[in-house]
């Protein structure tokens, strides 16, 4: 216990104190600065359930947010990987209370009930926009608005391209869960393919959840081993599926966002959201003080969904067939689900002479897989 030890001990204490003072001092200086710079554009909060760059569902929403951010007077704040727990309620509150958000886009389906429904009544001056929920005027708060798109139109056209391009006549579809939204896409894709080649079949694999990269890769490999030569999907991030297809030298169709960068050779086309259309119309309504519609839905003619540009493997004949269907969709004349229609167990699900237009709510309860799909709507 000599003098040197004592000296070095005091020096350590001095250094630690200095470090602590710097940390807290710096923090407080910033606090003051952050308060000073307090100007107010309209701040819009975006919340995503996954990564903003997942080549899928969340990227499609984030691309819409990016287009909004370019407009004057708009500030975007974003949070990614927010689970569908109380965390999303707290994130919404935090964006409102701390970032001063005047509008919230809760972009995951599972955010709606109970989270958006519980938070919106607490902040009546803030508008809550939710993707995919069903607004119920008798129960839900007046500041909740929902949006979605008829992407099965794109799936139908992608099916045409896939059915015409496939050599084996076997298509593969990797899906998360057998829920109406997903079943509708699988059916539209298969019906598009069979409209140009009636012998085509689609093999479906359900992975059980929205983001399961390893299971999706396994499913892709096993489908390719079974001889399918066009692969598509309905999961949150198509990344690993498109990459596996490209690696194994087969074709693929994207979903949610343009995935051509992941499969430059085999990418045929894809079904994409173009949310900016809806986001911009919401913003215009907010800024002009107009009443915002509680339910917004749109298809290809409304600019809510769009096709990826055709890849190099798509022939001119195929392009022509697809363009014809696209024209119908652009005019709003494309009716995919019409009778007589049988499911893959042989049961008639739509009677002859009956047809459902895209906006028909009957389609939102779809619980069957059509003839030509190999798989079970029970998901087993």
């Amino acid at each position: 216990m000599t003098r040197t030890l004592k000296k070095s001990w005091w020096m350590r204490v001095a250094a630690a104190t200095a470090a602590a003072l710097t940390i807290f001092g710096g923090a407080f200086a910033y606090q003051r600065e952050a308060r000073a710079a307090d100007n107010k554009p309209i701040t819009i909060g975006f919340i995503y359930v996954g990564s903003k760059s997942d080549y899928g569902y969340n990227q499609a929403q984030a691309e819409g947010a990016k287009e909004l951010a370019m407009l004057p007077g708009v500030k975007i704040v974003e949070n990614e990987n927010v689970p569908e727990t109380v965390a999303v309620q707290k994130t919404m509150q935090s964006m409102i209370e701390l970032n001063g958000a005047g509008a919230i886009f809760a972009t995951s389906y599972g955010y709606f009930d109970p989270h958006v429904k519980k938070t919106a009544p607490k902040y009546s001056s803030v508008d809550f926009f939710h993707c995919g929920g069903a607004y119920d005027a008798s129960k839900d708060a007046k500041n909740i608005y929902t949006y979605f798109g008829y992407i099965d139109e794109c799936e139908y056209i992608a099916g045409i391209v896939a059915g015409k391009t496939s050599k084996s006549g076997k298509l593969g579809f990797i899906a998360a869960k057998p829920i109406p939204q997903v079943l509708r896409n699988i059916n539209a894709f298969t019906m598009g393919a069979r409209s140009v080649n009636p012998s085509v079949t689609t093999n479906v694999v359900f992975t059980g959840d929205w983001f399961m990269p390893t299971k999706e890769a396994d499913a892709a490999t096993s489908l390719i081993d079974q001889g399918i030569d066009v692969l598509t999907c309905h999961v949150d991030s198509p990344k690993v599926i498109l990459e596996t297809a490209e690696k194994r030298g087969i074709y693929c169709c994207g979903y949610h966002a343009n995935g051509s960068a992941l499969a430059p050779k085999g990418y045929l086309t894809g079904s994409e959201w173009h949310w900016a259309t809806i986001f911009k119309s919401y913003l215009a309504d907010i800024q002009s003080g107009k009443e915002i519609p509680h339910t917004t839905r749109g298809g290809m003619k409304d600019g809510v969904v769009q096709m990826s540009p055709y890849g190099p493997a798509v022939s001119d004949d195929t392009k022509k067939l697809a363009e014809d269907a696209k024209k119908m969709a652009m005019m709003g004349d494309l009716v995919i689900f019409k009778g007589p229609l049988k499911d893959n167990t042989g049961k008639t699900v739509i009677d002859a002479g009956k047809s459902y237009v895209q906006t028909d709510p009957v389609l939102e309860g779809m619980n069957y897989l059509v003839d030509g799909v190999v798989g079970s709507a029970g998901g087993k």
Partner: protein
Amino acid sequence: MTALDLASTPSKGISWKAVRLTFGALLLLAGVSVLIHCLSSHETAALALGIILGALGGAAMFESTAESTLIPAAAVTLSLIPFGLFIAVVAGKDPFHAFYLLYAGSFAKWFTFQETLTYAAPLMLTGLCTALPMRVGLVIIGGEGALVMGALMSGGVGHFAQIHGASNGMIVFWMLLAASATGAFWIALAGALKHYRGVNETISSLLLIYIGVALMNHIVEGPWRDPASLNKPSTWSVLTPDGDYLLGGIHFGSFTMDVHWGLIIGFVVCLLCWILMNHTTFGFAAQVVGGNMRAAKVVGLSVGKVILITCALAGAAAGLAGGIEVAAVQGTVNATIVAGYGYTGILVAFLARQNPLAIIPVAILLGGINASNNLLQSEMGLPDATVRVLQGLIFLVILASESYYGKLKFFKKSEAVRA
């Protein structure tokens, strides 16, 4: 002269006890002055900071608490240095702004503090699921499975009680009871496999997570699915007739909080577990079993019973977290119940050094880091992985700091205690 004698030789140049006392007094003084400043200026932003500094200062002045509070506190503070470097070098952003946002987003305001507590609530219970078995020498990491199974059963039992006309209070009671019992069974399985068949409990509890999640998905999407839940398969919702949660926000008279009762439950359960493990003969028996199982057998302890009860208690805590999640947050059971609280609980248990009482502040600390995630992303554009980097760094530094216990002269025990 033995090593012990050497260590207890009074130092000539400097009295470490005096240094420690001075240090504690200074911290306490700093904390109190921050508090006085906050209260006199009605600026509540630094209130939490004052409380933390004051509490640390107070703890430093007592021999029994100084080491166990100051070493982790120093480790947490030190981990800010690599974190700051990470922000500056990897993300290319201002680390001091990040430090400010870490505090602003977690403790600075009543609003953010409530957010912190909301995140902390389930972690207290899942932390126990790993901490308690550690006392008997088992490394159980399957809290997530017990949580999921507890949630599932509470959803089913809650629905059953509701259609049979039970009152709201009784529905909650049955739900939480079912959740705890199921969780207890789940982790007791891992304990039993270990005790009777010698199966590694870490692996078996991990595998039980996968089984639990698969079972939950199967039942939620199959037999127990509410047909009205079209695009998100869920069980029937268990809410009050007005559509509110059965387990609502905390309120005492006119005092209300935006945090559900799960926080109080977690608090109380941690406290009870601490009393059980540190102040009863059962806790002592558990410690003996954990220390040396053979010795425990020799002295006549029924090792199997101690192991099974401890595992069951641990599972009950995690299952309870699941039941609370259903009754207070989700109002139904579906796949979103698998949110990783069980895994974060492992981290909590390690940081708290398996002490049930220490789990409370550790859960609040991790809850605060989670809460500040919002501001770090929205104000600085940092990716959401930033807070996980910080959590990882804290974990590493805390583990590294373990080697300093009993070695720093600063914490040297006085003669009276030693004798």
